[in-house]
């Protein structure tokens, strides 16, 4: 069976051929990512505005974040992007075993990100009283940092609102991404992604890279900025 004939059975009825379907799928994904940029854009705008208004509080906020976590996530996500890209390559080359391995590695790194974020970083923030709305009463060392920068608590809470919104929406995207990877793994086990139609792998790949890139913006904007080099 030729590749074209095999591909043809995978073409949905509204398309003329596999090529058209692939282009449509990829283009649709890029458009979806454009909407995502705008979605995050509102948050970035609000963050930029309040940062310029309440400089001290936002600097203090950056100093209250654990930079080690941020750096670790960054390494984790960059590595997961690499394995995802290798996975797409494996799907194109029709290698089910290496595709499964790469997808699984990506899955593990994604899940680790979410788990560490919830279990350690956010829980730590909660204990320290840095979660506006739930438990916002900084004490101990945190209070010293706040006083050092002459930050006021309402303004500091604005920083943390944006911190939790931005990283929260990002983490939500990671959860969706891990879910997508799970489906991909099941499909791969059924032998679906390595018979010429690698669209799904490629599109999840695009999504995954996008979510990683968002983190690449979030990390300096939230953790690194503010005079802590």
């Amino acid at each position, binding site marked *: 069976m030729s590749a074209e004939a095999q591909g043809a059975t995978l073409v949905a009825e*509204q398309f003329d051929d596999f090529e058209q379907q692939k282009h449509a799928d990829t283009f649709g994904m890029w458009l979806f990512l454009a909407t995502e940029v705008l979605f995050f854009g509102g948050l970035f705008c*609000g963050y930029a505005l309040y940062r310029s208004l309440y400089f001290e509080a936002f600097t203090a906020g950056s100093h209250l974040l654990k930079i080690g976590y941020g750096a670790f996530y960054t390494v984790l996500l960059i590595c997961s992007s690499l394995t995802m890209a290798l996975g797409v390559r494996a799907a194109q080359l029709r290698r089910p075993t290496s595709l499964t391995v790469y997808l699984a590695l990506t899955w593990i790194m994604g899940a680790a990100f979410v788990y560490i974020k919830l279990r350690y970083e956010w829980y730590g923030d909660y204990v320290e009283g840095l979660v506006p709305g739930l438990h916002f009463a900084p004490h101990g060392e945190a209070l010293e940092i706040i006083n050092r920068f002459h930050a006021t608590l*309402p303004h500091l809470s604005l920083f943390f609102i944006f911190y939790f919104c931005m990283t929260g929406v990002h983490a939500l995207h990671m959860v969706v991404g891990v879910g997508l990877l799970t489906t991909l793994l099941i499909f791969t086990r059924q032998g679906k992604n390595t018979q010429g139609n690698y669209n799904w792998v490629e599109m999840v790949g695009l999504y995954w890279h996008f979510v990683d890139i968002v983190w690449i913006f979030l990390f300096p904007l939230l953790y690194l900025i503010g005079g802590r080099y």
Partner: protein
Amino acid sequence: MSTVALESPPTLPEVHYLNADYGWRSWLFTTDHKRIAWLYLFAITFMFVVGGLSATLMRLNLIEPSGLLFEPASYNKLFTAHGLVMIFFFLTQSIPTVLGNFLIPIMIGARDVAFPKLNLLSWYIYMLGATVFIISLATGGIDTGWTLYTPLSTTYANTNVLSATMGIFIAGFSSILTGLNFIVTIHKMRAPGMTWFRLPLFIWSMYATSVIFVLAMPVIAITLALIALERVWHVGIFDPGLGGDPILFQHLFWFFGHPEVYILILPSMGVISELVAAGCRKRIFGYSFVAFSSVSIAAISFMVWGHHMFLTGQSVYAGLVFSALSFAVAIPSAVKIFNWTATMHKASVSYDTPMLYAIGFIGLFTIGGLTGLFLASMGTDVHLHDTYFVVAHFHYVMVGGAIMGYLGGLHLWWPKMTGRLYPEAWARFAALLVFVGFNLTFGPQFILGYVGMPRRYAVYPAEFQVLNVLSSAGASILAVGYVIPLIYFTWSALKGPIAGPNPWGAKGLEWTIASPPPTHNFEQTPIVTEEAYAYGPEEAHVG
């Protein structure tokens, strides 16, 4: 040849998309873009009735300066419901999801949209959002105005802000997916020979609209999410008491809000181009200018949001830029008006209902657009801002423009959608009623605004009564004008005379196939060799 064909009475095709399959499953699980259009038509007609009823009650209440029927608390919920329903659950969907869904694949010569399942998913998401919203209304309603300004909506309102915004939030994703689907369809699914400059102008305007869907809707989604967050956890994102900035909300809201206004009017402009071409049997004058004006309106619409905020204390220099850009967006709109008018020159103008709506649109949109200049210019906006002048202006655009286009489009393509004709005399009469009723409703509101009556007033000083009564009288005529089509369309769908494939003698791929079309639209993928609206004799189009 053609005379012979006309003499034999047209018949319905044996198998078409409506009778290809029966049962509720074949509708609720359909991926056929034409059936999905019907699903939307039923849903949004219901929402239109909800929004229309609340408008009727508002106009009734305003007959008396002290309020005829309601306390201010109830009146506030009525106008909020009217605005939110009409904007987020009727107008946003109207032309794109009904006419757009039905026509885009056919007009470009495709079997379906690029992602049919996603298309159905959009409908379900819309239904979920609409259901949540209706429940929110039924269990108490929301009283913040459709603009949801903070800190009123986040801190001070005690109504169902959370559930109502959730409904809108959900429905927004339906629009994002519809826009995404349309853009990919128009890019990737065109038939061989259907180049960009052979596309009907309706497709151009739907393309521009879809771009706005994709780029503006996510912003309102995140903004509504922030409102919800602030309400649930009592944090101070927009509350000045906690360091937040209430004006930031307005920036985010109008960054979505003004493009949204063009989501409502651009599709209608596309429909009018089709109505004028079909009604005049003529190629649209200055095709490429009309096409590019749609795209430039979409592009500039993202840079004018600050003209809603001249009086909030935003920097005067920012105001200057926003004012200038708002004038800039007026020019492509004017170009369209002039081109439609010029198309009618030396044409063969029919008096069929769709053309009557098109003529009504051109006139009313001219007034709606020109009165926009009063609000784009900062000097005059100072006095007219938040008065009935604004209400009149945007209803001339939204009702006189968008709804006229929607109704005109429904009348033009109804024979294609159902295979049947509607009673022409009744339809013309209804079109006339809509035109007269509309002007009587909203014309007096310009004067009301000029003499200073603020919008969203449940009670008002006695000297405004005469004009308010006039306006309410007009609204009753308008309401009758909307009910008549509801009745004769229902009748026509069941018992109307058979239309045949091309009752108007119009050009375009949709008129080359049977009415109603078969499930996959075309027996064979059509090959397009001529430009849009090629009405002239064949020789004229060589080279």
